[in-house]
C-alpha cells in the first residue's frame, strides 16, 4: 500500500515535472534547446521535496529525463541533466531543512534570506552538470558555455524563488492569517491587472519608454505582502511573472529586447528580487501578527490570573521570595485595613504580629527549601495583624508561583475568627452537655440513692428505738441488765454496720459525680465491681447482675468516668430488657489491655438505629438525653480505648477495650476535652 502510494506520487510528480519542463524548454529555450531562462520545475521540485520528503526524488529524475529526452540531446545528456536537476532539488531541500526551518521557511525574515541564498546556490549544481554534459556531447559550443550556464542558472534560481514559495504557502498557509479580506483581494486583483496591462501594453510603454514603468509593480507586491502575507506576496509575484514572461517572450513590455534570452534573463532577475522582497515582507507581517497574538494571549492570561486572584474567597497575597508584596486582592484590603497601594509598599511580615515574625521567617525559608503547595497553621495558632494593630486568627495556605521574572509565593489567608468563636462556643456547649448529662444521670440515681441510704438509716433508727426500749425496761427492772446490755451491744454493732453501708454508698456516689477526669493506677476489677454494686443498689430488686471479673491491675483510668460508662451501659441493658432479666458483666485481661463486656438478653438493637447509636442526642427512649453512649465513647476514647457492640435477637453485648499502656501526649490532650 505504501509502496503503491509512493509509486503513484512519484508517477504524478514525474508527469507534472515533465510537462512543465517540456513546456518551458519549448517556449523559452532560445539560446540553447536545453537551457531555458524560465524554469519553474526547480521551484516545483524543491517545494515537493520539502512538503512530502526526499523519497519523491525519483519522480523528479524521471520527469526531467522524459522532458529532456523528448526535447533534445541524447539519452546520456538527458540522464546527466536529469541527475543535475534532481541533485539541485536535494541540495535546496538540505540547505532549507538544515538552515531555514524546513517548510516553516517563510515564517521569519531570517529564513527567507537563507531561502534566497539556497535558491541561488542549488541551481549552481544543475547548471554546471547540465551545461558541462551538453558541452561534452557537443550540444553546446564551448564558446557559448558561459552564456548558456548563466541562462540555466538564473532560470533555475528564478524558478526556485518564485514557484517554491507559491506551492509551499499554498499547501501550508501561515498562521495567523493576515488581515486582507475578499474585497481587498478583488481590489488588489484589479490593481494588479491594471498594472500588468499598463506595463506590458505596447500602446503605453512605446510612448513613455524612458520611464521604468516596471517599478509600479513594487508597491503592489508590498501591498500583497503586508495585507495578504507570504501567500499574497508569492501569488502576486507569480501572476506578475506569468504576465511579464509572456509579454517579454512575445516582445512586449519594458524588458523586451531583440535578444529574447537576454530580455527574459533581465526579467527573471527582477522577478527574483521582487519575490524575495515580497516573501520578506510576508514573513515580517507574519512575525508581527504572531507577536500580537502572543501578546494578546499573555494579556488574556494575565487578565484571567487577575480575575482569579480577585475572585478568590480568601485574601490572596503574592509576594516575591524576599517577602515583598507584589499583588493583592480586594479581600486583602478589607481583611487588613490597608488600601492596595499601601499594601504594595509592604512586606508579608508587616501583616504578622511582631512576636510571630521570627517564626514566619523560619517558616518561609523552610517553605522555599521545599517549595511545594502546603497549608500552614494546621494545629498552630497563626495570627494576622491589621493596620490598626489588632490581631486576628488566620489560616493560610501557600503555593509557589514561578514566573518568567522571578519565583513568588502566593498565600491565601482566611480569617478564622468566626470559626474560632464558634469552636469556643461549641466547646462551652459541649462542657455544658457533659455536665447536664452527668446531672441527668445523677437525677435518675437520686431516688435510688436515697432509697439506698435510707435503708441503713431505717435499721439504725429502729435499733436506737430498741436500745431506748431496753434502757426503759432496765430502769423499770423489767429485764435483767446483763441481758439488756448484750442486746444493746448487738444493736449498736448492727447500727455501726449500717453507718458503714451508708458511707460506702456516699463514696460510690462521690466517684461517680467526680468532675475531674483524673487517671490513677487502678485495679480495674474493683472499679467495675463498684460500678456494678452502685447499679445494683440503685436498681435493687429489678434485675440480676452476674459478674465475672478477672483481677486486673496496673491500669491508669479515671475511676469515676469508667464507672459512669458502666452505669450507662448497665442502664441501657436494663431498659432493653424492660427492667427485668439478667445482665452479665465480664472483665478479661487481654494481651495489650482489658476487655469489659456488658451483656443483656433483651430483644437486640434494631438495624435502623445501629449506625446512629453513638450519635449525640440520638435516643430511642422517651426520656433519654441521647448522650449516654456518646459520652461513654468519648470517655473510653480519651482513655485511648474503644467501645463497640454486637447485637442480635437474643441480646446485645457492649465491649469496652481499654489499653494498658500509659497514654501518649495526644491522648492526654484528648482527655482534656472530656474534662468537665
Amino acid at each position, binding site marked *: 500500500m505504501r509502496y503503491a502510494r509512493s509509486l503513484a506520487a512519484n508517477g504524478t510528480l514525474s508527469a507534472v515535472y515533465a510537462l512543465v519542463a517540456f513546456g518551458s524548454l519549448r517556449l523559452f529555450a532560445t539560446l540553447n534547446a536545453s537551457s531555458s531562462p524560465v524554469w519553474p520545475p526547480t521551484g516545483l521540485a524543491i517545494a515537493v521535496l520539502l512538503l512530502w520528503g526526499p523519497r519523491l526524488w525519483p519522480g523528479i529524475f524521471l520527469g526531467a529525463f522524459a522532458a529532456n529526452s523528448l526535447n533534445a540531446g541524447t539519452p546520456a545528456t538527458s540522464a546527466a541533466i536529469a541527475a543535475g536537476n534532481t541533485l539541485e532539488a536535494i541540495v535546496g531541500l538540505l540547505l532549507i531543512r538544515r538552515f531555514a526551518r524546513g517548510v516553516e521557511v517563510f515564517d521569519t525574515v531570517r529564513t527567507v534570506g537563507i531561502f534566497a541564498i539556497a535558491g541561488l546556490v542549488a541551481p549552481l549544481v544543475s547548471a554546471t552538470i547540465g551545461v558541462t554534459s551538453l558541452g561534452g556531447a557537443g550540444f553546446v559550443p564551448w564558446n557559448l558555455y558561459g552564456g548558456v550556464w548563466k541562462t540555466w542558472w538564473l532560470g533555475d534560481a528564478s524558478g526556485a524563488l518564485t514557484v517554491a514559495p507559491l506551492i509551499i504557502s499554498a499547501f501550508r498557509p501561515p498562521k495567523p492569517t493576515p488581515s486582507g479580506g475578499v474585497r481587498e483581494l478583488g481590489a488588489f486583483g484589479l490593481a494588479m491587472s491594471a498594472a500588468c496591462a499598463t506595463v506590458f501594453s505596447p500602446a503605453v510603454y512605446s510612448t513613455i519608454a524612458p520611464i521604468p514603468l516596471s517599478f509600479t509593480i513594487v508597491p503592489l507586491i508590498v501591498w500583497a505582502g503586508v495585507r495578504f502575507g507570504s501567500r499574497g506576496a508569492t501569488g502576486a509575484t507569480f501572476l506578475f511573472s506569468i504576465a511579464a514572461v509572456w509579454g517579454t517572450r512575445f516582445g512586449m513590455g519594458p524588458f523586451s529586447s531583440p535578444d529574447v534570452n537576454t530580455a527574459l534573463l533581465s526579467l527573471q532577475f527582477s522577478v527574483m528580487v521582487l519575490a524575495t522582497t515580497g516573501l520578506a515582507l510576508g514573513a515580517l507581517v507574519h512575525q508581527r501578527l504572531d507577536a500580537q497574538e502572543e501578546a494578546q494571549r499573555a494579556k488574556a492570561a494575565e487578565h484571567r490570573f487577575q480575575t482569579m486572584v480577585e475572585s478568590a474567597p480568601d485574601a490572596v497575597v503574592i509576594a516575591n521570595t524576599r517577602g515583598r508584596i507584589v499583588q493583592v486582592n480586594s479581600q486583602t484590603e478589607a481583611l487588613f485595613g490597608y488600601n492596595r497601594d499601601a499594601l504594595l509598599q509592604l512586606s508579608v511580615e508587616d501583616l504578622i504580629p511582631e512576636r510571630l515574625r521570627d517564626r514566619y521567617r523560619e517558616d518561609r525559608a523552610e517553605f522555599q527549601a521545599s517549595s511545594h503547595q502546603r497549608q500552614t497553621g494546621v494545629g498552630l495558632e497563626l495570627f494576622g495583624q491589621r493596620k490598626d494593630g489588632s490581631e486576628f486568627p488566620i489560616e493560610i495556605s501557600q503555593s509557589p508561583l514561578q514566573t518568567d521574572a522571578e519565583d513568588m509565593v502566593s498565600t491565601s489567608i482566611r480569617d478564622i475568627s468566626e470559626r474560632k468563636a464558634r469552636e469556643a462556643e461549641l466547646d462551652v456547649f459541649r462542657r455544658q452537655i457533659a455536665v447536664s448529662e452527668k446531672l441527668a444521670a445523677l437525677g435518675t440515681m437520686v431516688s435510688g440513692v436515697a*432509697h439506698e441510704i435510707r435503708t441503713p*438509716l*431505717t*435499721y439504725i433508727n429502729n435499733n436506737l428505738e430498741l436500745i431506748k*426500749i431496753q434502757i426503759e425496761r432496765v430502769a423499770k427492772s423489767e429485764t435483767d441488765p446483763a441481758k439488756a446490755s448484750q442486746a444493746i451491744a448487738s444493736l449498736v454493732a448492727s447500727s455501726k454496720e449500717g453507718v458503714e453501708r451508708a458511707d460506702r454508698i456516699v463514696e460510690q456516689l462521690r466517684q461517680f459525680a467526680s468532675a475531674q477526669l483524673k487517671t490513677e493506677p487502678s485495679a480495674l476489677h474493683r472499679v467495675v465491681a463498684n460500678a456494678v454494686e452502685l447499679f445494683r443498689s440503685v436498681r435493687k430488686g429489678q434485675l440480676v447482675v452476674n459478674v465475672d471479673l478477672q483481677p486486673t491491675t496496673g491500669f491508669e483510668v479515671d475511676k469515676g468516668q469508667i464507672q459512669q460508662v458502666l452505669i450507662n451501659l448497665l442502664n441501657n441493658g436494663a431498659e432493653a430488657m424492660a427492667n427485668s432479666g439478667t445482665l452479665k458483666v465480664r472483665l478479661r485481661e487481654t494481651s495489650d489491655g482489658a476487655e469489659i463486656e456488658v451483656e443483656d438478653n433483651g430483644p437486640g438493637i434494631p438495624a435502623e438505629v445501629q449506625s446512629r447509636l453513638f450519635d449525640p442526642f440520638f435516643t430511642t427512649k422517651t426520656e433519654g438525653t441521647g448522650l449516654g453512649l456518646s459520652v461513654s465513647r468519648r470517655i473510653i476514647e480519651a482513655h485511648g480505648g474503644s467501645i463497640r457492640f454486637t447485637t442480635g435477637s437474643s441480646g446485645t453485648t457492649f465491649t469496652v477495650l481499654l489499653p494498658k499502656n500509659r497514654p501518649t501526649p495526644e491522648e492526654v490532650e484528648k482527655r482534656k476535652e472530656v474534662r468537665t
Partner: protein
Amino acid sequence: MKRILLVDDDRDVVKSTAQLLQAFGYKVTVCVDADRVVEMMHSQRPDVVLHDVRMPGLDLRAQVRAIRDDPDIARVPIVLFTAVLSARELAQEVGADDAIQKPFSSETLRRVLRDCEARPRGTNFRLKKYEQA
C-alpha cells in the same frame, strides 16, 4: 394481739423492725420472698401487711391486685414500707392503703398500725396522710 406480715428482703431492716413491732406487742411474721406473700397471707391471716416496694422479681402493682382480687385476703390493709421519696403517692397509685416511709419513728409506725386496727375490718379505708415524724 394483732398480727403483722412484714415483707422485706433486707435482713437488718427486717430484724430491727420485727423486734420493734414485737416490743409494741404485735405478732410478727416475716416474709423475704415477694412471691410467697399471698400464700403466707392465707396461712398466717395477718391483720396488716407491711410491704417493701423494691424486691427481686416484684411487680408491686400486680402484687396489690393479686391480694385485692383474692376474696379471702382482699380486705387486709396493705401498708407500703418503703424508702422511695414519694411513698404515699406510690401507695395511692398502686392501690395500697397507706405507706410508711423509711426511716420512720416508732410513733409513726404505731399510729399507722393503730389507724389500720381502728378501721372496721372489711372496709376498704381511704388513704390518710401522715406527717413524717
